[in-house]
């Protein structure tokens, strides 16, 4: 469930207005945010359906209910930046510019997929658009992101890394070893890395409270002298404001920054998990009231930026995009068998 804690309130006190009236977004951009989030939602619902029909294999981890989080931070993506996340990665890839067709085809294991059918849901990569994966081992990708940031500083590129990871991975040694390096290297401006802790409250079926005695997760950044704050990540405007401010600071200083992005995983851990013994239906129902898309649409209506008819049109359009992606994936050929042995080693 989304909550706003003291540190995100602090950002409002800093004088950055949060109302759309003073936000630097025109109507097209605001409508575009709605379109992006709705497309991701309907894309993933279509994927979930296909998974249940047995058309998608392996694992399928959905981002439903967390869309505003990735969208808000990735709005600050600039060419040269590098984005890395774990296996709940569809939204990140789509926001950065991978097409719904190639992402869906990847989920279907088709040769037209984003990584040629070699990775599946957990290993989306779209390097040309700044998306550097897509990793399946909890916590294992975190050191890579810190390395990206070192290279960006070393190469004097002016670019930065956005490193996403879940609340389940913050207990893994890889986070602590990597965060320690980031803090250390950042002292000399050698680590322009935004750590985005996606706190969706569960690592598989284990809640934050059952995984650690220190449940204020962002406090863990203090151990490594990494400045941090929390944000209500189901409030797109809050995320956008936070992202704009902290990415500017990171680019200027070359130091890492930590965000604990509060959200909630309304779907099961993976699409194959039906029994949710670890939480009650009431809890999920309550969380759904804070759905980021509903909240955002409500704001658009409130501000007079969009009408109910506009939103209906966006939903219809998104549905068509998702349907088209499914059709494309279903009609695409499987990878050629000659692909089995390619991409193992580089020349």
């Amino acid at each position, binding site marked *: 469930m989304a909550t706003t804690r003291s540190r995100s309130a602090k950002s409002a006190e800093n004088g950055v207005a949060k109302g759309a009236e003073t936000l630097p977004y025109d109507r097209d951009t605001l409508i575009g945010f709605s379109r992006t989030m709705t497309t991701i939602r309907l894309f993933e619902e279509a994927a979930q359906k296909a998974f249940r029909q047995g058309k998608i294999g392996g694992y399928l981890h959905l981002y439903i209910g967390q869309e505003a989080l990735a969208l808000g931070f990735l709005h600050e993506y600039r060419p040269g930046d590098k984005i890395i996340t774990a296996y709940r990665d569809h939204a990140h890839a789509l926001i950065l510019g991978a097409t719904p067709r190639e992402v869906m085809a990847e989920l279907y294991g088709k040769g037209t997929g984003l990584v040629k059918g070699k990775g599946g849901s957990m290993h989306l*990569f779209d390097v040309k658009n700044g998306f550097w994966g*897509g990793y399946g081992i909890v916590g294992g990708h975190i*050191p890579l992101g810190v390395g990206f940031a070192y*290279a960006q500083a*070393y190469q004097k590129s002016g670019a930065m890394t956005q490193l996403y990871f879940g609340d389940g991975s913050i207990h893994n040694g890889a986070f602590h070893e990597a965060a320690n390096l980031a803090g250390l290297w950042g002292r000399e401006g050698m680590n322009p890395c935004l750590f985005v802790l996606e706190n969706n409250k569960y690592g598989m079926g284990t809640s934050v409270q059952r995984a650690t005695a220190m449940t204020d997760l962002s406090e863990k950044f203090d151990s490594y002298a990494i400045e941090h704050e929390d944000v209500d990540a189901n409030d797109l405007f809050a995320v956008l404001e936070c992202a704009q401010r902290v990415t500017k600071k990171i680019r200027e200083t070359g130091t890492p920054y930590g965000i604990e992005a509060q959200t909630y995983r309304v779907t099961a851990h993976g699409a194959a998990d039906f029994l949710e013994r670890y939480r009650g239906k009431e809890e999920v129902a309550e969380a759904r009231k804070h759905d980021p898309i509903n909240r955002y649409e409500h704001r658009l209506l409130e501000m007079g930026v969009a009408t109910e008819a506009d939103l209906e049109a966006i939903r219809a359009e998104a549905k068509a995009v998702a349907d088209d992606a499914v059709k494309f994936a279903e009609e695409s050929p499987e990878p050629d068998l000659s692909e089995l042995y390619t991409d193992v080693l580089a020349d």
Partner: protein
Amino acid sequence: MPVMTYREALRSAMAEEMERDESVVLLGEDIGVYGGTHLVTDGLIDKFGDKRVIDTPIAEGGFTGAALGMAMTGMRPIVEMMTWNFSFQAVDQIIQNAAKVRYFSGGQVTVPLVIRGPNGGGVQLSAQHTHSLEGFYGHFPGIKVVSPVTPHDAKGMMLTAIRDNNPIIFMEAGALYGAKGEVPEGDYTVPFGKARIAREGTDVTLISYGRQVPLLEKVAETLEGEGVSAEVIDLRSIRPFDTETIVNSVRKTHRAVVVQEQWRWFSVASEVAAVIQEQAFDDLDAPVERVSGAEVPAPYARNLELAAFPSVDQIAAAARRVLYREN
């Protein structure tokens, strides 16, 4: 030709390539200010600065993963494992990420990463500090595994490693850091996947790599005194693997002994023996013998340690068995 130690050969390869290529950086524990536990990187921080010779905290998973991130994004990092024993802390990064990311990204990523350090035992470091991990790392597709034994190969293969666009597991003969040998001046490379015939012979083929190769040369001298001409093959590279040199030698000698410090089961020697029976079965006059480390964690006491690793006597006995000169 200049003579230098194995250690100096490695250092000169890295220093020369760092002069040529700014994307080459070093990371590891105490490789900078301290000079390197084994002094392989001694003096490099003074020459190249602390942004290129990066002293890390003792956290192999973290810095190996970070180096991998650098390798994916335009740099050519060389990670020092103070010893390969510590690489178990980084296995998730090496196997799950470095070896696979090119494949599961559909070829979008290249990983020019070298991980180097001393491997093997022989200096009484006991169980946790004594491993020969060629077979372990050699198991995984997506990485290359090499093990040079001469200063000549140490430099030439290090230059090949740094210029390769793949993750390289570079296993040094730690016990031989001080051993001297001729090293050509200037830039030269020794390719991977090409074994070296360390000594030519006609009666039996002795095969190994790394620290065992000098041992095989001693065995060959012993056998010479018995009227047996032994050929000694230094594999140099475990993956890719030079099948041709091995098979050609066995076709000539009809007998083979494979020697390794590591444990026998599921090992490099097992693979060599399998390749020989697949490709030179009709040429064999005796079953292939394997001489391996004792199936125990490495012991501390000197006499126990010596008993745990292949010896001249054990290897010579194995050679005599394949020659039917001894039971």
